[in-house]
């Protein structure tokens, strides 16, 4: 076991893939000479060369589309879009090509593409650099959406994602890169379809993903000292959702709270809530609650930004209300 950062875990995952499969290559802005905006690919250009570690111009649409084309052509590209905010420039390629080609062609053309993006807020980088759009992408049939929240998943999800014949989008919360965790030196393979119960409990189910898993766990810890036993689910895969795990938990606790940094209106929290209502209604002793990002473009000033993002205290307050 070693203690490593999330960033290092991601790097290990990429490196591991590059070594194991010569079809894998990485493409994105500043990943080579700069070493990666978040330093994830630091050192890789030197190790793997410019053919496989490709700096791209600031052309999201072209290099994401090129990733799609390369995947069609038999490669296994890892396209890094610097942040989800810039992915908007590539939405046409992602939605109209990557997600759609297999279906439109009647099953002829698979797109085994992996796109990694940093996501989320918390560093005072203001409205155009702080989006959480996982819920948007989870709306699109044809895509698999992953949100690794632990170092184990940061390292482990990439390989099965690359081996998926269909496009996979991996969202790495920017605030997690520096977070440390324990990782086995002999990494255990992880799946990319199930949710994980990060903490067992009996009074309420807190459902979180990506950056909010830590928030949920911290809240659960505090709540425990108040005698409230919270179960924390890390969704891990946002599309398709592992609803059996969610429903089984709600059947035990009878209360559900979703913690989502994205906006509540029409977001992922709304989807999770709807599914619980549809299929676990008779297990609910209270309405499904949500703690979400405030419905504002992310402000710059720290106190406002903090207010706009789900905090541990918000989760605790919500749970207290539910079990009162």
């Amino acid at each position: 076991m070693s203690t490593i950062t999330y960033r290092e875990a991601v790097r290990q995952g990429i490196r591991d893939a590059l070594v194991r499969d010569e079809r894998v290559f990485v493409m994105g802005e500043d990943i080579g000479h700069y070493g990666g905006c978040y330093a994830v690919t630091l050192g890789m250009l030197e190790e793997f060369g410019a053919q496989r570690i490709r700096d791209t111009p600031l052309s999201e649409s072209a290099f994401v589309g090129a990733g799609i084309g390369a995947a069609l052509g038999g490669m296994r590209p890892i396209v890094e879009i610097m942040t989800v905010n810039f992915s908007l420039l590539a939405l046409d390629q992602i939605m109209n090509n990557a997600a759609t080609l297999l279906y439109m062609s009647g099953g002829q053309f698979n797109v085994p593409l992996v796109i990694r993006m940093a996501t989320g807020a918390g560093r005072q980088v203001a409205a155009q650099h702080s989006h959480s759009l996982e819920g948007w992408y989870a709306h699109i049939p044809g895509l698999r959406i992953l949100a690794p929240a632990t170092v184990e998943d940061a390292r482990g999800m990439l390989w099965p994602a690359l081996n998926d014949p269909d496009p996979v989008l991996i969202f790495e919360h920017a605030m997690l890169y520096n977070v440390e965790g324990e990782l086995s030196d002999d990494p255990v393979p992880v799946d990319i379809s199930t949710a994980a119960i990060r903490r067992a409990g009996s009074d309420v189910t807190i459902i979180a993903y990506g950056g909010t898993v830590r928030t949920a766990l911290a809240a659960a810890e505090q709540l425990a000292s108040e005698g409230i036993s919270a179960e924390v689910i890390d969704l891990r895969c946002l599309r398709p959702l592992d609803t059996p795990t969610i429903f089984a938990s709600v059947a035990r606790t009878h209360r559900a709270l979703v913690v989502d940094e994205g906006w509540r209106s029409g977001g992922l929290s709304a989807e999770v809530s709807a599914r619980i209502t549809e299929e676990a209604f008779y297990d609910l002793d209270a309405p499904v609650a949500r703690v979400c990002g405030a419905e504002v473009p992310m402000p710059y000033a720290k106190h406002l930004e903090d207010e706009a993002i789900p905090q541990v205290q918000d989760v605790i307050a919500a749970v207290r209300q539910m079990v009162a």
Partner: protein
Amino acid sequence: MTDAVSSPGSVVAATDVDAHMIHLLREMMRIRRFEERCVELYSRTAIRGFLHLAIGEEACAVGVMEALTPDDAVVATYREHGHALARGLSMRATMAELEGKVEGCSRGRGGSMHLFDASTRFYGGNAIVAGGLPLAVGLALADHLQGRRRVTACFFGDGAVAEGEFHESMNLASLWHLPVLFCCENNLYAMGTALKFTESETDLSLKASSYRIPSWEVDGMDVLAVEGAARQAAEAVRGGGGPHFLEMRTYRFRAHSMYDPDRYRDKGEVEGWKEHDPIPALAAQLSERGAIADGDLERMESEIDDEVQDAVTFADAGTFEPIEDLERFVTSEHSSGATP
């Protein structure tokens, strides 16, 4: 730079040349008759949605395809029936697709704008203008990384030149020296707006050369000229010369699509271009060479009509994909039909 090639190759036997020209004529005629039949089918609602016809532009698809091998890749637009047929998709599969039948090349999933065929490396069929260019860059990138000497031919219209994706793709292809043959069919109108109203610089090959991509202008109404230019360009691309750009000057005789009342073009202009119809032009050349006799053309037409009719009959008799299969092929694991 204007093109200079008017007849292909060096010295070959006259009959070979004739045979080849007859082949080109046939290919163009197949497309023409197919497209004309589509008009009729659309009117009787056997074909629905959007229908974009290539009537008048046949020489572009036919000429360029001659320069490609079966191993090369083709990316096209929503006006791609001609490209599909010239590439080798059967009329049956194409017509069935237009009628939404499961026997269609895309199982009825795509319709007119999304013809796909893996066996001929025909990657659509893209409905977003310029949406196919990054795909073509990627396909070429895969070939480059795997050391394969293949060409990816990417067709698009003059309208695509305004899109960001055009510029990004040209830049990237050039920067990475990728084997893409960019084939621009400049028919002077992006849907309903003339080029002069949308482009500050209407010389399209000039734009290409600003990315350091060698470019040709070709008379898109002369199939032999197109073929000649395409062969030269493809050879250069295949040989590691990086991307090349062909601007084919052509014209569509009908409106943008079946819904278009074509108010933005002067009737005189249309008639004028019709005088440059690539099909009678080639037929006249063949006639002058004495390569075809009077009855030959009729015979060819009759055969083609039969082929088109056969395709229509096949499509009409086709079946619709069962509704239970609606969710198949959203992702691969659901091709067994399991619910997500």
